[in-house]
């Protein structure tokens, strides 16, 4: 019996030791696992910088640059490609330097985008997939970009579909380095094609988006964005 007590005590000491040793792992992730980082469109001052990490591998279609720019929204399932035109350069002599950001100190630790995307899965978070939007590239840590892009989408979201209840339509779209959209599709329909069309049109009307920052290594990001009526 006393041997049992000693064995149990030793085991508990080991367990407590493991807990104490394991806790520092938490330090790097200052944010608890289930914490939601909200980016307010109407009050960007409250927006916290985030380091999104997708948890599920995403298949990223290779951009085809010579297809037409206009994306007919009547067929959202089709993967479309926007024609890429070189950014208009001003005539005066100009050298555009790559901006150095705080992130640049960590660039040595960055892996390629594909590797990142493969290693993380997409989480919509919360109990419902409609509670918020997600980005499928963990290394994209530019809160300003979301503020600007979503502000643009919001200004183009003109809901003329009258419905006495809550409608949610989730749209997935991909943006390439130049800010152009290469894919847009309905991820989850609201059940009303009219409302779905309005949501797609809001994104269509918002192109081009701000160009992805120069120091962002990947060529593409994918965003899942829910719209409510």
């Amino acid at each position, binding site marked *: 019996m006393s041997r049992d007590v000693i064995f149990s005590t030793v085991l508990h000491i080991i*367990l407590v030791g493991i807990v104490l040793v394991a806790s520092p792992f938490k330090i790097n*992730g200052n944010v608890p696992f289930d914490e939601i980082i909200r980016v307010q469109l109407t009050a960007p*001052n409250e927006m916290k910088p985030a380091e999104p990490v997708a948890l599920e591998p995403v298949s990223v279609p290779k951009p085809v640059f010579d297809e037409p720019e206009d994306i007919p929204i009547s067929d959202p399932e089709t993967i479309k490609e926007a024609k890429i035109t070189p950014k208009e350069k001003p005539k005066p002599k*100009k050298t555009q*330097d790559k901006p150095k950001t705080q992130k640049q100190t960590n660039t040595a630790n960055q892996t390629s985008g594909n590797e990142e995307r493969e290693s993380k899965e997409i989480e919509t978070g919360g109990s419902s997939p409609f509670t918020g939007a997600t980005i499928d590239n963990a290394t994209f840590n530019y809160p*300003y970009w979301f503020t600007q892009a979503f502000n643009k989408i*919001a200004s183009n979201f003109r809901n003329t579909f009258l419905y006495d209840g809550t409608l949610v339509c989730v749209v997935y779209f991909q943006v390439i380095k130049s800010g152009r959209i290469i894919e847009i599709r309905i991820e989850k329909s609201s059940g009303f094609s009219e409302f779905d069309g309005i949501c797609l049109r809001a994104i269509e009307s918002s192109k081009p988006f701000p*160009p992805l920052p120069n120091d962002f290594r990947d060529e593409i990001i994918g965003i899942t964005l829910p719209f409510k009526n």
Partner: protein
Amino acid sequence: MKRTSILSLILFILLICISNVNAQSEIRNIFFDTIRAGDVRLTPIGVDEMKYVGNQFITADDSSIMRWVSNIVRKDIDFYANFKLVPLDSFFIKVYEIAEIDLLGWKRLGADYMVKLDAEFPGTNLSARWKLFDTNTSQEIAKGKFEYNKVYWREIAHNIADEIVHTLTGEAGIFRSKIVYAKEVGDAKELFIADFDGANERQLTKTGSINISPFFTHDGKYVYFTSFMDGDPQLYKAKVENGKIERVATYPGLIAAPALSYDGNKIACVMTKDGNSEIYVLGLNGKVIKRLTNHRSIDSSPSWSPNGDHIVFSSDRTGRPQLYIMDSDGMDTRRLTYEGSYNDSPVWSKRGDRITFVSRSKRGRFDIASIDTSGNDYRVLTRNGTNENPHFSSDGKHLIYSSTRLGGKDLYTMDITGRNQRRLTRSGNCTNPSWGAVAR
């Protein structure tokens, strides 16, 4: 013994699982609030005073140039429809005893972004560096450098503003675009070209006659216009570079109100060659492609939809001028406006969802009004004086028009919502403005 061991083992496994979960807390997800209709917000931006970062003495002129560049960048930012300039608050600076405002200071002033400007003067050049910061994260978003002869300081300032617009919106800025307009010179109306903000004005035509309804070609190399220089009003084009004029089309009667299609290949205009005022489509060479209207009333002022499928025009077929939309082949005409007792000079927005026009509103004078393409949501955008000749900027976010609100006819600009109305000219004799694409 067995029971205690099993319990301990379970506890052990549980704790291992929890520690694993904690270790995964690095994996974070970003969630954004759901997009809701009507969430529109102007982006507040602060522009720091340009600073000299060289190590030599600079002249008073150079010092003035730095101040002018800062001011032009500020004016451009303030002008842009999606931006809001955050002014330097001298009271704030005094209260906090700040010698030089930093990112935190700009953030406290309400700026989400801050533009930092540095200057050097190598030889006769101005070398201007700009940096754009996110004040909320202190992140440097973008930076760049322009170097040019210092006499072109205004161009450099516009270039910087264009880059800021592009970085934050993805769209091309309009600050290097030009406008063309008619200005009274004696008894004549000559065409003048200026920067979008009215600066650098120069005379394009010197015909001594009436020249009206100008517009730029998409490459910015030519201005098409209607002129009375040979008697009846006919269609001409002038080379922007040297003002050389060529006649584009000559038909019996008049050719008026030319409007370029968004693809830049066709011109819709009014002609009376068949007796009545009808709308025709011409090629850029002046050759008639098609007659679109055939009605005993007066049809005028055509404007193309962005996709080229439709044309909006005014017609008095129901008594007083109202707006109508037809297919670009002249079929399927339908009335657009019912509000406003006199509607004319329509222009189709670049987005394609609205049409802006001149409307005699309830106050009995001519105003700039806007309506959606289904004929709903009629909005009057101006309130004072007589307002005419609306025309969109190349990015479709701004309008230029003429107004008599302060006496003489001058040019004004505003956002497409009617916000941010600004006076461009002060000579009191400017009309018929048209906004060109960026062309340098």
